[in-house]
């Protein structure tokens, strides 16, 4: 590995001033499961690595009737082992419990998965359909950005050089709502998704119609994609295989995958259709509906 300096700021103010003052490349270290591996291959060579695990705001997990706040450095395992969070946001758990194996989940952070901005990141479609907002700060102020706008390309995100992802903010689930994440990998674990999809639905009180929906797909474009059209196609429609099929088809058309060593275009298009269907089925079930 190249040589670098290592800092552990104890407060968000200290962290933000480090980011504001930086002259040479900086990388933030939360779980390290992406960063350390990337440094070892030489893909990234920051002169300074800032460990954010002592900064309270990045390490809290707060569930209230206002929703969920996940500090950017909170690990997947911390999230899925919290029974209350797991009950309230099962789609998040679908994704968090699939990344790598248990050793990776013990370190890999939700925020890190988002900032790494891999097109196939498992948490991002789930965060998108759960209407998560990225809470961003720098030494001059803060802003919030919907997660669907956070990734700007493969491996690039919307953060400016001095900006910090502090946390993800998720609204509370509406009545009669449910969400689900599904992905496809050749092995049953330890793989990166060939394609993935998340769906969130709000149903009518009798569970027979879609009030609204959100559908996001991943690994089939330069960034995860919120497929507005597929969601609009469900609005007001009956909860049925036919409606789901139409939405899945629209999602398939919205996908623009490539051929690479993990999959082909044709396969990924097929998988989008299948995974959106399965994610919707899971979401409907969690919302108390039935196909």
């Amino acid at each position, binding site marked *: *590995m190249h040589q670098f300096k290592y800092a552990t700021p104890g407060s968000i103010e200290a962290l933000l001033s480090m980011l504001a003052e930086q002259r040479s490349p900086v990388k933030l270290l939360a779980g390290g499961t992406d960063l350390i591996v990337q440094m070892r291959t030489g893909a990234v060579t920051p002169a300074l690595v800032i460990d954010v695990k002592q900064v309270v705001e990045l390490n809290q997990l707060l569930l209230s009737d206002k929703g969920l706040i996940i500090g950017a450095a909170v690990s997947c395992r911390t999230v899925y082992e919290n029974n209350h969070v797991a009950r309230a946001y099962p789609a998040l758990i679908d994704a968090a419990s699939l990344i790598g194996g248990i050793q990776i989940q013990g370190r890999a952070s939700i925020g890190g998965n988002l900032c790494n901005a891999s097109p196939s990141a498992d948490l991002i479609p789930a965060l998108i359909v759960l209407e998560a907002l990225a809470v961003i700060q720098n030494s001059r102020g803060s802003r919030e950005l919907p997660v669907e706008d956070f990734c700007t390309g493969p491996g690039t995100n919307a953060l400016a050089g001095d900006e910090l992802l502090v946390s993800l903010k998720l609204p509370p689930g509406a009545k009669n709502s449910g969400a689900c994440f599904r992905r*496809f990998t*050749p*092995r*049953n*674990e330890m*793989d990166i998704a060939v394609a993935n999809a998340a769906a969130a639905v709000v149903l009518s009180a009798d569970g027979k119609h879609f009030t609204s929906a959100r559908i996001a797909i991943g690994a089939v474009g330069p960034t995860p994609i919120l497929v507005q059209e597929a969601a609009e196609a469900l609005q007001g429609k009956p909860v049925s295989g036919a409606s789901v099929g139409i939405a899945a088809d629209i999602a398939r058309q919205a996908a623009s995958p490539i051929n690479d060593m*993990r*999959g082909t275009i044709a*396969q990924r298009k097929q998988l989008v259709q299948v995974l959106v269907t399965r994610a919707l089925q899971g979401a409907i079930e969690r919302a108390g509906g039935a196909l």
Partner: protein
Amino acid sequence: MKAGGKREDVLRVIGTTPIRPDGLDKVTGRAIFADDIHLPGMLHGKVLRSPHAHARIKSIDTRQAAALPGVHAVISAADFPEPAKPTSKSADISDLATNCMATTTALYDGHAVAAVAAENIHIAGQALGLIEVDYEVLDAVLDVRSAMADDAPVIHENLKPGFFFASTKKAHPNAGRLEYSDGDISKGFSCASVIVERTFTTQTVHQGYIEAHISTALWDADDRLSVWTSCQGHFDIRDQLAGILNIPMSHINVIPLEVGGAFGGKDSVYLDPLAALLSKKCGRPVKMAMSRNEVLRATGPSSGSSMRVRMGVDDSGKLVAADISFAFEAGAFPGGPVSAGILTATTRYNIPNYRLEGFDVILNKPKIRPYRAPGATQSHFAVETVLDELAEKLGMDPIELRIRNAMKTGDRLVLGYPCPVIGGVELLEAVRSHPHYRAPLDGQNQGRGVAYGFWYGGGGASSAELSVNADGTVQVCTGSCDMSGTRMTLAMQTAEALGIQVSEVQVTTGDTQSIGFTLPAWGSRTTFATGIACITVAEKVIAKMIERAAGIWETDNSNVRFDAGVFTNTNDKLQALTFKQLAAKLDSTGGLLSDQASVSPQGVGFQLAAYLVDVEVDTQTGKVSILRSTIFQDAGKAVHPDYVAGQMQGGVVQGLGWALNEAYIYRADGTLANTSFLDYRMPTALDQPMTETVILETPNPGHPYGVRGVGEVSIVNPPAAVANAIYNAVGIRMDSLPMSPTAVLEKLWEHQAAQL
């Protein structure tokens, strides 16, 4: 020594399941593997590797690297001496040396071109970045068909045809060829009522041992070299080093350590000569370890292949003809396993008319090395799926077809000699009568497949030294590396022969200066051949102890009987001594005893296995899930039944990985794209259910307890069996490996399109 001497009912130790002595160190983390060696003053070495699949090396400038603080030595091919003349037919020393470090040309992505030794791996890595290599990139050849095309780039100006099991003859600038044939295939096919012809492709796969290659070299003041290395045959490593470094074999000591998996891939030097040369240059011990990226790019995977099989059967179900042509990758140097591939293709069946043709093909990939029954998994994938298709077209049960044609004891083999004692028909009947064969499949898109497999196995040179201690315990030193628990199976055979408890026998592996020459732990030969060495030396020691007892009792040797650990005077039954009691008297009757045996037994017997698998195919995603898995294998005599079961299960899961997801994926420029365990997909614990093991025992008369080799054949069946199961599940015939979701989906689409 009597072959097949002991009868089953008097075996006390063989067939039991004692706990292995080295196990304690392995469950506590104390066991010393190659990377656990730390020597005073030790430096760390790293290798600079070609980023091109095929490139002329115009120049290498190492001056900046050598000047980096913390760097103590830099080497390239120029630092290699002229190699010694080869001493064995199968190891071309100059090819080996060139594989360790490229001379004029880099022949594959990852081919070593230079190496450094530095204070730590980080400085070594930085130093590599300072080495300037001027490459002229050449066209790369990446598959067997293009390698044998008329206009293919020629990789070696003067290709020496390769040898592995058998010799090949040069047939193309990039390929050697061999053939076995008998009878008249056109006459045979004319008698066939059903003929199936199929072509198959398989990809390069790696043995996937979890421990990489690590080697530490140290020279002492009088130019003697010590090497600690992860390998499966330290004598071969020593001889290869002696050849490459052109120094006497007696000047080298290779010290065996615990080995973290090998499966055939650790039979050759890679880092060892580099560590030795770096150490020589800087005068300090040098440890070198490969990263996983380097292991995948630059060691010895198993051949990808292109295969054509044409077989015919008459209406009574007899195979009448087989015409087979296999082109197997040899990698950058000749000597891949195509000969073993064609020799295992059909030899478990009696086919009167056959032509088996094999091509050993050079291309710009790492030099192919053995992987558990080398060549056989590829050949079985082709032949066992064709057999299934023949059975289906005949309307015959697939096992019945195999039983009707199965080779039996005494039948003439492709290699010309009669088949030694085997129980192939019994094995197939065990499959047919097993509940798994009849269990209902109750879901959609589920299917069952079977395959029947064969592997040779090896005997050969093995040495063992045995010493009796005054307290009646015994030390045995052998030359066999223990990767899987063979020190226990050797202790058990020794204990059986001496009539003592297995806990009283301590088995160790000696370094190359301490014990006689022993072939590597490959060919499933250790329990068989080194076992015979242990039994032989035990019998020699017993003979000497008989003399001592005779002396004590003042009678003739012929009046002393040894049975089940007790020496008795046949003239006076009251005069009896246990092994332990006599051991206590050795010192006062002429001194403690020890002896040595170097043997080279043949007659390892053949390995036979059958595999039954149920799969479910998700037709929406192409994913194949394994529902149920049963392997049947003939162990001859299972010395330690749990170890035998472990070999069977381990081979099955490797075979499932090969079947479903493992493959080298190359970019168009010939560089390897999947250089980590993320994308070189080996099975995890979650990817398959338990594999039930059924051990049959047709004793091998070539071994006193009937032992056959068991370590290899378990891998050969899963790809074919899974392919057959997929066909039975969803009606598609897979003709390439891996049967990944991508491949299955494409076949399903083809199939659906054809139905329209």
